[in-house]
C-alpha cells in the first residue's frame, strides 16, 4: 500500500494492480527543470511526472500555451522535452532513467511563467499565414523581424559539444513482416508462421499486445471464446519458431520492392521482405472545442495507458466526452478502479448507445448527458471544469443550454483514424467510409495487407478472425499454402462502433486542430477562404500536419474541416501524401557507423613512418610531401627520387582485337605501335571532351598494358567494359590490375644507376630507350618497367605485384642511398610536371575541355578512321577552338598567381572582361620563377610572349604567354 509520503510526492499514483509495467519496489530519481522527482523502473518520463502531479510539460510552438499529456503514445507534440543533450524527446514513451536531466523546451524564462505566451494576446493580429502579410515594408527591417521570429521558434536545443553517438545497422531478410504487435498483428503473424512463413513481428512498444496491454477486453461484441487473452497470444508467439519479435522497434517506412526500414534505439534495421502486413492500429482523434489544448484534456486511450501501465491518473474528477462505445469502456474501466467519473457527455441519443456498461454506470450514479457535447475546457493552466451544452434537434449546438461541470480531467473518446501510412507508402488506396467516419484502405499492391484497426476493424473477435485470414493469405502469397482469393483485406465494419463525424464544436476561444503548429479551426477556415482550398495547399499554407506529429493528431480533422468549408465530400477532399519516416528518426541511426572509405597503398605505413604529410586524392590517401616539396623536386632534377604512384589505374587488354579498340578509344594511332613500345594517349567521349589520359604499353603480340589517372581507374574500366560489351569487344579480354599491381616512379639522372643495382636487365639507353616497356626482375621480383617521363627526367615506372610492393620500394630506396635518392610526393610531382608543361586531366581541363583546345593537338589524329569524339573534334578543328590552354610566366617572377584566378582585360572605364583563367601555377625551384598554365583566347595564346593580365587580390598583374616547356623544352633529359 502507498504510504502518506508516497501520496505526498506522487499524488496521482494509484494503488498497485495487475498488468503494470513499473517495478514499485525500486525508486529512482531524476530532475525536470532542476526539480527532483521520483519514478519507478518502467515509468516513462511523462508517467513519472504525471504521478508527481506535473501537468504542464511543454509550451506550444506559436502561442507558448501550456500543454500537457494528450495522446500518451508518442505521437502528439505535447510532451516533447530536452533530455540532456538530446532535443525533442517524447516524454510519454521514453523510459525514465536514474539521474536523467529533463528540461522543458522553448520556454522563456520558465515553463510555468513563459512570457512568450503573451504572443497570444496579439493573436488576432497573427492569424494563419500572418507572416506572409506582415513585415513587408520597409524591407530593410525584415531581417530584424526575422531575427526575433527565429528566436521565438524552434523547440529543443543542440549543444555544440554533443558527442557523436554510437550507432549501427542490421540487415534482415524474411518472408513476411508484420508491423504492429497488437492482437491483429500477433494473430496475423501466428497464422503466417503456422503456414510455414518466416515472420518478423515489430512493435514500437516495450512489449507486444497493443491495446490489450491497457484495455480490458470487456467489449460485448467480443464473445469470450473468440477473444483470446493476451497471455495466451504471447505464449503462442513464444512457441512459434518462425516468428522473431522486435519490440521497441518502429517500422519507419516502406520503400520500393518491399524494402523496409525500422529503428530500435541506436540500431537501424534494413529489411528485405516478400510481404508486409500493416497492423499499426489507429490514432485516436481529438475533438476540437474551446481550449481543447488545456492540460487535463486527454484522449481516452491515453488515460487508459497511464492507468493500466503505470498506475497513474492525472485527475480526481473525470468527465468523459464521447460519441461511441469506447468512451463508455473508458468510463467503466475507470469506475472499476475506484475513480470518480463525474459525468459522461454523450453525443448520441440514449437509444443509440449499446454499451454493456451503460446500466452499471448509471446505477452507480454516474450522471449521463445524452445528446450533449463539450464546448469548452475551463481553467487557465489546467482543467478546472468542462462547459457542456445540448445538441438540438437539427444537430446544432444550442448555446442557451450550456452548463458547467466541475472536473480536473476531461477525457475525449470521439473516434479513430487508421494508422495506415505504410500501406499508403506502398501504393495502397483509401476511401472514406461514412459508416465508420474513417478513411480506410480499400486496395493495396500485391503482398501488402492491412489488418485490425488499421483496416477499420475494431472489434477484437473480428480482428482475430481477420488476422487469421490475412496471415494465411500473406503466407500463401510468399509460397506457403494456397492463395484463397483474398487479395488485400476485408475490414469488418459491421460492428456498430460508429465514430462521430463531428470534429469541431464552435465557440469563441481558441480551438486547436493542429497542436504542433498551433493552428485553430478558424485558421483553417481563413486559409480556405483565401483560396488555399485544396488539402495540399491548405497544409502548406497553414503548416498543419507538418510538425512533429506529421498529421497523426490532425489529418483527419483537417480533412473534415476542409471538406465542410468547400461543401465537398471527404472522398473528394482526399488526403495528403504519406511520407517516410512514420516516426521521427535520428540522423545517427540513419547514418550508422561512419563507413566513408579511404584506400591506402602497400607503402602507406612506410610513408607515415618517413614523415609524409598525407592528402586525400579521390578515394586514396597519398603523400603530399615529406617536409619540403621544393627540395624533393630538386632532388629529382639533380639526383634521383621515388614516388608511389600505385593509385594509377592499371588495365590489361589481351587478344587480337586490342589494336582496333585502342584506335577507337584513343585520339591517336595505335596499330603501328610495335611490341616493346609505350605511347601516350588521350581518351575523349563523343562530345570530344577529354575523359582521361595515360600511357599504353604493347607488352607482346596480343597483350597491352594501359594506365589511367587514379580517379579515372574505375570509370575508365567501366567505360571500356561498356564499349567491349556493346559491340567492340570481339577477341578482347580486359582485366583490371589496379589493385593487383603497385607502381613507383623512379626519376632523376641517377635513376638508371639505382635500378641497375637491382636488375640484370640491360638498362642502357640503347637497349632500353625512352618510351619503351621491358619485363625484368627487380630485387628478384618479376616487374614491368615503363620508361616514361611525367617529371621530365630520365625515369622508370616500376610496376610490380602488390604483395611485393614494399619489398621493392625498400630495395629501391636502399639501392639509391649512395646516389642521394629521396622519396617525393604529389606536390613535388606537380611542380616537376608543370616545369614540363604537362597537363593534369581534371585540373587543367574540366568537364567541357577538348584536347585540341587543351594544347594536345599533337595527340589527335583526325586523319585516322572513326574514333570516339572524332566528329566533334573535326568540327572544333574546322571552326577553331574558343580558348587554348597555354603556358605562362609572370613578369614579376616572384608572384605566383593562385590557381583559379581569372585573366581579365580592362576596358577604357576599367570594367573587366574575363578572357581566361589560371589552371596551374607554382614557383619553379629549377628556374627560380613563377610559371603556370592558363586558358586564353586563341589569338592571344598563339603569340609566344604575348602579355596579359591576371587579377590577383583585385590588382591586375602582368604575365606572358610561354609556348615551350619551361624546362628542357627539347626533352633531352628524358632520352639520356
Amino acid at each position, binding site marked *: 500500500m502507498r504510504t502518506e509520503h508516497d501520496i505526498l510526492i506522487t499524488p496521482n499514483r494509484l494503488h498497485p494492480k495487475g498488468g503494470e509495467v513499473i517495478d514499485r519496489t525500486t525508486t529512482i530519481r531524476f530532475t525536470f527543470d532542476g526539480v527532483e522527482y521520483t519514478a519507478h523502473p518502467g515509468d516513462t518520463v511523462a508517467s513519472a511526472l504525471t504521478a508527481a502531479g506535473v501537468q504542464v510539460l511543454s509550451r506550444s510552438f506559436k502561442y507558448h500555451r501550456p500543454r500537457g499529456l494528450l495522446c500518451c503514445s508518442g505521437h502528439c507534440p505535447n510532451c516533447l522535452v530536452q533530455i540532456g543533450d538530446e*532535443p*525533442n524527446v517524447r516524454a510519454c514513451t521514453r523510459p525514465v532513467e536514474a539521474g536523467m536531466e529533463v528540461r522543458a523546451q522553448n520556454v522563456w524564462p520558465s515553463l510555468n511563467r513563459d512570457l512568450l505566451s503573451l504572443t497570444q494576446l496579439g493573436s488576432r493580429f497573427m492569424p494563419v499565414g500572418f507572416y*506572409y502579410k506582415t*513585415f*513587408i515594408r520597409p*524591407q530593410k527591417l*525584415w*531581417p530584424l523581424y*526575422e531575427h526575433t521570429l*527565429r*528566436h521565438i*521558434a*524552434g*523547440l529543443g*536545443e*543542440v549543444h*555544440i559539444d*554533443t558527442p*557523436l553517438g554510437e550507432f549501427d545497422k542490421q540487415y534482415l531478410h524474411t518472408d513476411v513482416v508484420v508491423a504492429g504487435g497488437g492482437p491483429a498483428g500477433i494473430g496475423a503473424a501466428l497464422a503466417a508462421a503456422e503456414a510455414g512463413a518466416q515472420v518478423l513481428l515489430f512493435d514500437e512498444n516495450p512489449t507486444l499486445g497493443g491495446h490489450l496491454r491497457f484495455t480490458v477486453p470487456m467489449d460485448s461484441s467480443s464473445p469470450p471464446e473468440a477473444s483470446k487473452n493476451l497471455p495466451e497470444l504471447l505464449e503462442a508467439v513464444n512457441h512459434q519458431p518462425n516468428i522473431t519479435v522486435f519490440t521497441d522497434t518502429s517500422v519507419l517506412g516502406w520503400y*520500393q520492392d518491399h524494402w523496409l*526500414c525500422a529503428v530500435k534505439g541506436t540500431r*537501424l534495421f534494413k529489411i528485405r521482405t516478400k510481404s508486409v502486413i500493416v497492423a499499426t492500429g489507429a490514432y485516436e482523434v481529438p475533438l476540437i472545442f474551446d481550449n481543447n489544448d488545456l492540460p487535463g484534456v486527454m484522449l481516452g486511450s491515453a488515460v487508459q495507458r497511464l492507468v493500466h501501465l503505470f498506475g497513474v491518473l492525472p485527475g480526481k474528477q473525470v468527465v468523459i466526452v464521447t460519441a461511441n462505445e469506447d468512451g463508455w469502456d473508458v468510463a467503466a474501466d475507470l469506475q472499476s478502479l475506484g475513480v470518480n467519473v463525474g459525468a459522461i457527455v454523450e453525443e448520441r441519443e440514449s437509444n443509440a448507445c449499446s454499451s454493456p456498461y451503460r446500466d452499471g454506470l448509471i446505477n452507480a450514479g454516474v450522471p449521463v448527458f445524452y445528446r450533449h457535447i463539450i464546448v469548452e475546457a475551463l481553467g487557465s493552466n489546467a482543467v478546472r471544469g468542462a462547459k457542456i451544452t445540448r445538441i438540438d434537434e437539427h444537430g446544432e449546438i444550442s448555446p442557451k443550454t450550456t452548463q458547467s461541470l466541475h472536473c480536473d480531467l476531461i477525457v475525449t473518446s470521439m473516434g479513430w483514424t487508421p494508422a495506415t501510412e505504410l500501406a499508403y*507508402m506502398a501504393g495502397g488506396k483509401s476511401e472514406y467510409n461514412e459508416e465508420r467516419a474513417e478513411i480506410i484502405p480499400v486496395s493495396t499492391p500485391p503482398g501488402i495487407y492491412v489488418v485490425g484497426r488499421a483496416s477499420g476493424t475494431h472489434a477484437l473477435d473480428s480482428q482475430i478472425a481477420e488476422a487469421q485470414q490475412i496471415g494465411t493469405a500473406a503466407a500463401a502469397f510468399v509460397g506457403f499454402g494456397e492463395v484463397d482469393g483474398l487479395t488485400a483485406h476485408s475490414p469488418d465494419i459491421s460492428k456498430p462502433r460508429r465514430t462521430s463525424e463531428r470534429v469541431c464544436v464552435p465557440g469563441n476561444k481558441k480551438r486547436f486542430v493542429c497542436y504542433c503548429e498551433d493552428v485553430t479551426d478558424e485558421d483553417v477556415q481563413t486559409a480556405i477562404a483565401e*483560396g488555399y482550398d485544396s488539402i*495540399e*495547399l491548405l497544409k*502548406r*499554407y497553414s503548416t498543419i500536419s507538418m*510538425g512533429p506529429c506529421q498529421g497523426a493528431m490532425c489529418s483527419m480533422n483537417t480533412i473534415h474541416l476542409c471538406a465542410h468549408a468547400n461543401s465537398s465530400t471527404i472522398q473528394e477532399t482526399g488526403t495528403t501524401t504519406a*511520407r*517516410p*519516416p512514420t516516426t*521521427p*528518426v535520428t*540522423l545517427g*541511426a*540513419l*547514418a550508422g557507423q*561512419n563507413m*566513408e572509405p*579511404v584506400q591506402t597503398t602497400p607503402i602507406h605505413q612506410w610513408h607515415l613512418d618517413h614523415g609524409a604529410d598525407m*592528402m*586525400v586524392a579521390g578515394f586514396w590517401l597519398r603523400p603530399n610531401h615529406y617536409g619540403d616539396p621544393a627540395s624533393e623536386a630538386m632532388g629529382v632534377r639533380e639526383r634521383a627520387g621515388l614516388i608511389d604512384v600505385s593509385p594509377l589505374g592499371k588495365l590489361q587488354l589481351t587478344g587480337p582485337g586490342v589494336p582496333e579498340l585502342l584506335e577507337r578509344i584513343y585520339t591517336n594511332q595505335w596499330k603501328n605501335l610495335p611490341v616493346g613500345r609505350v605511347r601516350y594517349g588521350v581518351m575523349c567521349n563523343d562530345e570530344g571532351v577529354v575523359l582521361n589520359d595515360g600511357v599504353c604499353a604493347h607488352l607482346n603480340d596480343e597483350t597491352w598494358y594501359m594506365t589511367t589517372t587514379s580517379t579515372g581507374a574505375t570509370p575508365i574500366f567501366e567505360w571500356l567494359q561498356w564499349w567491349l560489351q556493346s559491340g567492340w569487344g570481339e577477341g578482347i579480354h580486359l582485366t583490371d590490375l589496379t589493385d593487383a599491381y603497385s607502381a613507383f616512379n623512379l626519376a632523376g639522372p641517377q635513376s638508371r644507376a639505382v635500378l641497375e643495382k637491382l636488375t640484370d636487365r640491360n638498362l642502357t639507353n640503347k637497349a632500353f630507350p625512352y618510351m619503351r616497356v621491358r619485363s625484368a626482375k627487380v630485387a628478384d621480383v618479376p616487374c614491368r618497367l615503363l620508361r616514361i617521363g611525367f617529371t621530365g627526367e630520365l625515369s622508370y615506372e616500376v610496376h610490380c605485384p602488390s604483395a611485393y610492393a614494399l619489398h621493392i620500394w625498400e630495395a629501391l630506396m636502399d639501392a639509391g642511398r649512395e646516389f642521394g635518392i629521396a622519396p617525393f610526393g604529389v606536390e613535388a610531382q606537380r611542380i616537376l610536371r608543370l616545369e614540363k608543361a604537362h597537363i593534369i586531366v*581534371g*585540373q587543367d581541363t574540366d*568537364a*567541357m575541355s577538348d584536347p585540341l583546345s587543351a594544347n594536345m593537338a599533337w595527340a589527335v589524329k583526325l586523319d585516322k578512321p572513326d574514333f570516339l569524339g572524332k566528329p*566533334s573534334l573535326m*568540327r572544333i578543328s574546322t*571552326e577553331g577552338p574558343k580558348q587554348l590552354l597555354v603556358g605562362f610566366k609572370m613578369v614579376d617572377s616572384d608572384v605566383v598567381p*593562385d*590557381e*583559379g*584566378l*581569372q585573366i*581579365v582585360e580592362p576596358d577604357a572605364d576599367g570594367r*573587366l572582361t*574575363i578572357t581566361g*583563367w589560371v589552371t596551374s601555377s607554382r614557383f619553379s625551384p629549377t628556374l627560380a620563377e613563377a610559371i603556370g598554365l592558363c586558358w586564353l583566347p586563341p589569338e592571344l595564346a598563339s603569340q609566344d610572349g604575348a602579355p596579359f593580365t591576371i587579377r590577383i587580390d*583585385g590588382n591586375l598583374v602582368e604575365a606572358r604567354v610561354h609556348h615551350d616547356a619551361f624546362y628542357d623544352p627539347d626533352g633531352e633529359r628524358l632520352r639520356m
Partner: protein
Amino acid sequence: MWRSHELKKRYDVVIIGGGAHGLACAYYLAEEHGITDVAILEKSYIGAGGSGRNTAIVRSNYLTPEGVRFYDESVKLYEQLSDDLNFNVMFSQRGHLTLAHTDGGVNTMRRRAEVNQIEGVDSRLIWPDEIKRLCPYLDVSDHPRYPILAALYHPPGGIIRHDAVVWGYAHQADVRGAHIHQNTEVTGIKVKKGKVTGVETTRGRIKTGTVLNATAGWASTITTMVDIKLPLTTIPLQACVTEPLKPFLDVVVVSGSLHVYISQTDRGELVMGASVDPFSSYSMAGSLTFLEGIAGHVLELFPALSNVRILRQWAGICEMPPDYSPIMGFTPVNGFLIDVGWGTYGFKASPIAGKTLAELIATDKTPDLIAPFRLSRFEENDLVGEKGAASVGH
C-alpha cells in the same frame, strides 16, 4: 488569393505549368507588357512540382559569367519581391558557404569567387577560422576524410519561403487578369504548318498562338507533343527536414564533395538535400538510400547533430541538361516556347526566368541575358560551361 475560372475558348498566351516560373511569367507579362489574356494550366495544384519541393536556396555565385549575371538579376528581383508582390516571401539573406575539402575544390571555389567579384557579386574565399566564426557547429578539425580546407562565402545567398513565391506571383497574376487553372492537364498541342494553334486539356480545347512550356521536370512529356526532342534526362532529387530546433545554424552550408546542403528555416527545422538520384525516373517516392547517405554526410560536417531527428523526406524531379544550364526561348515550332532544363537550379531563377520570357513573348526577341541558354546552342556546339564547376549545384 486567386480565383477559379471557366476555361475560355482562346487565350493570347497559354503557359503550361503553374509553378513559380510559369506564374512569374504571367505576372511580368501583365505588369511589364500589359498582356493579360493569359492562361496558366496546372495539372495539379499550383506549386505542386519543383517549386514546392526544392530546398529554397537562392544564390548567384555561379561559375560562368553568363550564369552569374543571370542569377544575380534573379537575386535582385528576389530582394524586392515582397514589396512588388505585397506578400512576404521571407527572403533571408543569411549567407551561403560552399565548402572545399580538397586542393582542387579550393581552386574551383577561388575560380568562382573571382568570376563572381569581377561580375560584381559579393563572394569570396574564406578559411577555416572565419568558417568557424560563421558556423560554429561545423567540424573544422583536422578531419581525415573530408577536411574543411576553405569555403566560398557568398553573403547575399540565403533561403526563402518557396511556396510564398508561388502564391505571391499567383495572386498578383490573378489580380492583373491572368486565369490560373488548377487540375487542368494538357493532353495535346495543335500545330499547323509549323505554328502552334491550340492546346488540348482535360477540361477542353484552347485556341492560342503562343504556348510556353514551363513544366521543368516533365518538360519532355510536353515537348514530345510537338515532336521536339530535348537534351534532358529527368532524375529525382530528394530532400528531408528535421524536427524544429532552436536556431544554431545561420548560414546555408553546402558541400559538393559530400553531396549535401543544409540550412535552418525560421521555424527551426533543418532542411537538407543531396545531389540527384543515381538513376533517371519520374517517380517522387524517395529512397532510404538517400536518407542514410545524407545523414552520414551531415554528421561528417556537424557531428553534434546525431540525436536530431528527421521528420519527413520527399522528392521532386529535375531534368538535367548536358551543360547544367537552362534551355529557354524559341524552338523549331513557331509559337512554342520553352523554359526547361532547370536541373537542380530552377527555383532560384524564377523571377528572372519569368521576366525575361515575358519580354521574349512580348517582343518576339530573345533578351541578351538568356541568349546563351537558347536551344540551338546544342547543334551550334556552343554549350554553357556551368558543368565545369562539377560540384553539387545548390
